[in-house]
């Protein structure tokens, strides 16, 4: 039986591809931001300024949780039903 979701998937065949690419682009930007935060925190720490390191750590932690949340939106693709091994034998 055809459902709304099946029809949607058939009408927009590139949807999963676009979602996955978008998530990856956002993840790469987040990681880039974290690298910049770490670099800045190191520089300020070596310059005897502790406050920046603390703020950078919290910001980096928030970004990490955002990355974790984004994993929820990764499409798992179309599941192909394969018979179990026990059924084959």
């Amino acid at each position, binding site marked *: 039986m055809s459902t709304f979701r099946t029809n949607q998937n058939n009408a927009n065949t590139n949807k999963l591809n676009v979602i*996955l*690419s978008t998530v990856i682009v956002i993840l790469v930007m*987040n990681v880039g931001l974290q690298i910049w*935060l770490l670099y800045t*925190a190191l520089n300020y720490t070596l*310059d*005897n300024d502790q406050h920046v390191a603390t703020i950078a*750590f919290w910001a980096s932690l928030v970004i*990490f949780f955002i990355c974790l949340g984004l994993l929820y939106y990764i499409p798992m693709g179309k599941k192909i039903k394969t018979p179990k*091994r026990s059924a084959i034998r």
Partner: protein
Amino acid sequence: MNQNNNQEEENWKQDFPYHKQNAALVGRREFAKMLTLVSGGLAFGSGLVAAKANFFPKSPVEGEHFICTIEDIPVGGTKSFVIEGSTIPYILIHLEDGSFKAYEQKCTHLSCSVYYQPGSGQIICPCHNGYFDAKDGSVLAGPPPRKLPHLQVTVRENEIYVSAPEVLNNV
């Protein structure tokens, strides 16, 4: 029977991919998960930096240390020294205007040894052409990300002493 054999072969391939392409292939989902792992690692690294900055700060130089007499350094000359109990190399500079300055001799870029170029008013890192102002240690050009750490210089009865700077980040 034939169909069952094919299906069994496919399962075997899934478990043990013997083609190199299948074994080394990193899908986009795995890549996204790996990026999240890297993100966690960077957050952990930032936590270490913050912990080091807040709980294990760099101990400042304690007390006043005699370095040399004024006659030992001509105008435009320098003297390298290490404070007792420390391994950080410092450089004492007799500037052309008659003042004395003391800086860490390690470039803030990659810790190469810096030197003073007489007459130019510049401290130079030869590794990657980093230039610092000899008057306050600030970066003039090149890749160094921050100014040279300095020490307070006191001249008393023809003798030169160094101590921790009175106000951090201020010459």
